[in-house]
């Protein structure tokens, strides 16, 4: 029974595909998967927008949207309709073709990333051998569309925002890749399905997630930071820092094209959360052995949503960094830490089983983190201050 529930979507797909003649079957299968992805993730996008607005509201002691539908749950629908019926304005001097293509490319590329994410047991769209590489290739292509958007608008703010966004995404791509490489080293595979399989084991009912190893945890933290920057989320949301750049690269977009950017941004967020969950949090594997009765896809989506909630939480709390600080942080702190993490992962591999490697690896990483943070703060001359008073 639990197995049935677990595989319900797979079986459903097989059943539907079985209805058509043999030669059409692979095409129909692909179409079904694409349709499923195109249906589920925009739905999740709507949910996460609502969660974000409600959650931010609660964090700020507000209620958030509550007028459309019961408790405002239909707000994303209203927003969507509004975006659709809005006039589509294109600046006179804009490069119309590129201006039109930019959001399309973004959305397409972002959705491509989902092809390799294992969303449940046997629920990978294209179980690819080099899945991780594919994912990063798609992520890298998104930068181009952002540049296209910023450049084609012929607006200083747009261009500045796009340049910032692209520079930031390139810089954080490096730590993002390198922190994932740790996982590749530990599993010996670029295939995301394999990575989940390795993590889907239990000792005393506890899972073998990579986040529970020293370098896995460090990589997780670095990955989370880099993923936040990669998706231009607060506190790394300078490309759209409204206090300086109005709205960044999509300043000149309106109506449906703007909605596409918005969708692209959130879908990218969801997909990178999915990747993070797959790499470090065991993908679709249950957090406890006894919880395996719950379908695997539930765990995958639950992990994504937890990750999204964390994004929202951060957005509600932090101010944003400045461009040069962001770059410094990427190149001078995150990158060295990920490189060290690679070394530690190698060390882990060669130290053999036992508690010693836990202690050594954790100690190295912790010391490096504390030291690095201390040095970084000291060299930038910032830190807590004390104040004097005049009577």
């Amino acid at each position, binding site marked *: 029974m639990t197995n049935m529930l677990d595989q319900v979507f797979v079986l459903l797909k097989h059943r539907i595909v079985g209805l058509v003649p043999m030669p059409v079957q692979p095409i129909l299968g692909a179409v079904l998967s694409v349709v499923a992805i195109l249906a589920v993730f925009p739905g999740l996008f709507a949910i996460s927008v609502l969660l974000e607005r409600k959650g931010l509201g609660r964090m700020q002691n*507000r209620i958030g949207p509550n007028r459309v539908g019961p408790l405002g749950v239909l707000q994303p629908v209203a927003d969507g309709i509004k975006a659709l019926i809005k006039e589509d304005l294109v600046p006179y001097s804009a490069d119309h073709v590129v201006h039109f293509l930019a959001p399309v490319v973004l959305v397409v590329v972002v959705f491509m990333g989902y092809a390799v994410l294992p969303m449940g047991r046997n629920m990978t769209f294209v179980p690819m051998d080099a899945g991780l590489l594919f994912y990063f290739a798609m992520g890298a292509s998104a930068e181009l569309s952002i540049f296209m958007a910023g450049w084609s608008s012929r607006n200083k703010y747009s261009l500045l925002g796009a340049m910032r966004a692209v520079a930031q995404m390139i810089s954080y791509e490096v730590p993002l890749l390198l922190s994932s490489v740790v996982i590749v080293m530990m599993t010996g595979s670029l295939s995301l399905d394999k990575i989940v399989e390795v993590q889907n084991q239990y000792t005393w009912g506890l899972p073998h997630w990579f986040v529970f190893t020293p370098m896995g945890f460090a990589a997780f933290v670095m990955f989370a930071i880099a993923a936040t920057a990669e998706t231009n989320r*607060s506190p790394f949301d300078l490309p759209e820092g409204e*206090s300086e750049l*109005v709205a960044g690269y999509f300043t000149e977009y309106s109506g449906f094209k703007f909605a596409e950017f918005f969708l692209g941004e959130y879908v990218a967020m969801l997909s990178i959360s999915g990747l993070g969950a797959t790499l470090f949090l065991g993908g679709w594997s249950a957090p406890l052995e006894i919880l395996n009765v719950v379908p695997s896809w539930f765990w995958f989506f639950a992990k994504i949503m937890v990750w999204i909630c964390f994004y929202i939480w951060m957005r509600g709390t*932090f*101010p944003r*960094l400045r461009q040069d600080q962001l770059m410094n942080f990427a190149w001078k702190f995150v990158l060295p830490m990920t490189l060290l993490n690679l070394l530690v992962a190698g060390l882990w591999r060669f130290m053999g089983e036992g508690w010693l490697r836990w202690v050594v690896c954790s100690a190295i990483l912790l010391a490096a983190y504390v030291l690095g943070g201390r040095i970084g703060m000291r060299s930038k001359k910032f830190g*807590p201050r004390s104040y004097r008073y005049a009577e």
Partner: protein
Amino acid sequence: MSESLLEAWNRPPTIEVDGEGELLEVAMGPHHPSTHGVFRMDVVLDGERVIKLKPVFGYLHRNHEQIGQTVGYLQMMPYTDRLDYFCSLTNNWAYALAVEKLVGQAVPERAEYIRVILAELTRIQNHASTIGFLTQEMGASGTPLMYAFREREKILDLFESLTGSRMMCNYMRFGGCRVDMTEAHLNAARKIVTGLPRFIDEFENLLTSNEILMARSQGMGVLKPDLAVNAGITGPMLRASGVNYDIRKVDHYGIYDRFSFRVPLGEHGDIYDRYMVRVLEMRESLKILEQALKDIPAGPFIDPKAKIRGFKPKPGEAYGRIEAPKGELGFYLISDGGTSPYRFRIRPPSFINLTVLEDMCIGQNVADVVVVFGSVDIVLGEVDR
């Protein structure tokens, strides 16, 4: 624009430009999300570095000084509300002080206490919202701002129940206040004062040790003490630069001598110091409030013999100044014996504190300009008058 201003704008930049040489001129404002209203900064950028900045204001000019010279003394009182619309009560006080000096009017004891209580409450709500706006400029999604507004709401509720209006209070009168602060009001104030320390703690938890805030604000927008003194900067800006100058202490106006409070001083004169000085000032204001609410005597809230309306002061001049939340707020009046002043001049802290904006911003990153601007704490109504 006069010739000399044009020359000033066309003078060569004060810092060396890199070999790049391609300068980008960006007009930030008047419709820009970060300019707190209608204000424009013409920024010349070398890459992302600011090499020139021209503040352009006057979009909200409403002729307050001329109005002051045509209407009677009392009629100017509601206009002072509209200068710095965040702290109308301190504006009222400064104006009342100037007129009281002009006509030689004494203020009853209880009225002085009421004034202190309201001024310090105003200071707290102003500082809290300023910090909120400052972090908003840094991109904090408005969370500190909403917390500040939550507390400000309580204070404004008190103002409304006392003066009838939340922001445009029009409360002070020459020789006292318009209505009495009843025991109910005092109790409400006491309740606010007991709740506020928790709020300031919350604020500090959220921000003070936040590494991002430190990275964004420490060492940014430094204002050297000598420049600050030369430019006539006052208020928390000046104290953040390390100059000990608080009109409550130096001018002994009102009854501030009776309260024990300290003046926090910054050392570096950067944005973080301005932030911290404001936080610490809020705590000091709470001390004053506690004392004032304990000691407030019974008595008349306005001198019954005071002339409110239609009086003609003897020819002469008077300058009343107070430590407004934003700095030294002064009203200068010359009377020629008529029903309205011959000359009416406002010394607005916002405007004068804004004069050093270019000096603080030059050499900074363009993203810091808005933060420096936010740390000055201005209200455009007062800048443009």
